[in-house]
């Protein structure tokens, strides 16, 4: 546990920020890029993970545990979101036999 401050000195906070910005942008790119609804969902998971990493990095560098509790809540909400989203996806697939988001541009099937 004494290594912690050493670790923090070796890898600056800015590098953690840059890393999570890059992963967040890759996730945003995926949402714009893909038509498969499942892959769009996975891109959203990537973005949530980038935010989690940033929160944990800030929490460790500031010595404040609140950031890590927030990460815990983000994970909970992400799990609920995925369960509901995949259920909705199954229902949509049952109705239109496709999960292409371009076919969902009308409210009436």
């Amino acid at each position: 546990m004494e290594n912690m401050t050493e670790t923090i000195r070796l890898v600056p906070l800015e590098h953690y920020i840059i890393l999570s910005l890059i992963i967040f942008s890759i996730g945003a790119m995926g949402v714009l890029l893909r038509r498969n609804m499942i892959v769009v969902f996975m891109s959203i998971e990537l973005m949530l993970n980038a935010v989690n990493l940033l929160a944990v990095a800030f929490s460790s560098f500031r010595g404040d545990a609140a950031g890590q509790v927030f990460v815990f809540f983000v994970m909970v909400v992400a799990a609920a979101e995925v369960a509901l989203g995949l259920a909705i996806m199954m229902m949509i697939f049952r109705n239109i036999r496709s999960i292409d988001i371009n076919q969902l541009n009308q409210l009436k099937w």
Partner: protein
Amino acid sequence: MKYGILDDLIAFLTFGSIFEKRTTNEYLTCMEQIIFYALAFVAIAFSALTVGSRNAMYSVLYLIVTFFAMAGFYLLLSAEFVAIVHIIVYAGAIMVLFLFTVMMLNLNAPLLLPRALLVRLLAVIAGGSFALVLIAALGKAAHFAPVALGASQAVGTVNVLGKMLFNEFLLPFELTSVLFIATMVGVVVLTKKEE
């Protein structure tokens, strides 16, 4: 003080110049750095593969690798509890849900046509400029020195987090259980076949 975000970006892209080290002793002293940049490379490469892969099945598997790299970062930041919960929740529960859905839908390739080239190009440009804007905005952020903690004040342990969760964050914690019940009922109602 000549310390800008550009220097940070260059240092990040050159892996913190760990390749300039020569002797074994020098490598041993910067072990955390080596682990960080290796994990960063894995995380970025596999998240790009997740987004770029044509087969949804491979996307799921690449995403699992990305999640394990994330857990490595949490361990490096000495947030052990978050790392364990992350592995259990993401790699254990969420990815199993994704895998089951991909297998159940059993999508074949011609069902999903890729987007037009122009749209794909625009998406990549938009994502790239988004990253650029965020990193440029980081240059204006204030720098602060990390708070040095002794061995007795470790932040990421179950003890500290549990006390915080059940004192300051008790109400949100209880509300998440309401959220989960709503989710459970919703999922059962949604996926039930109509008679």
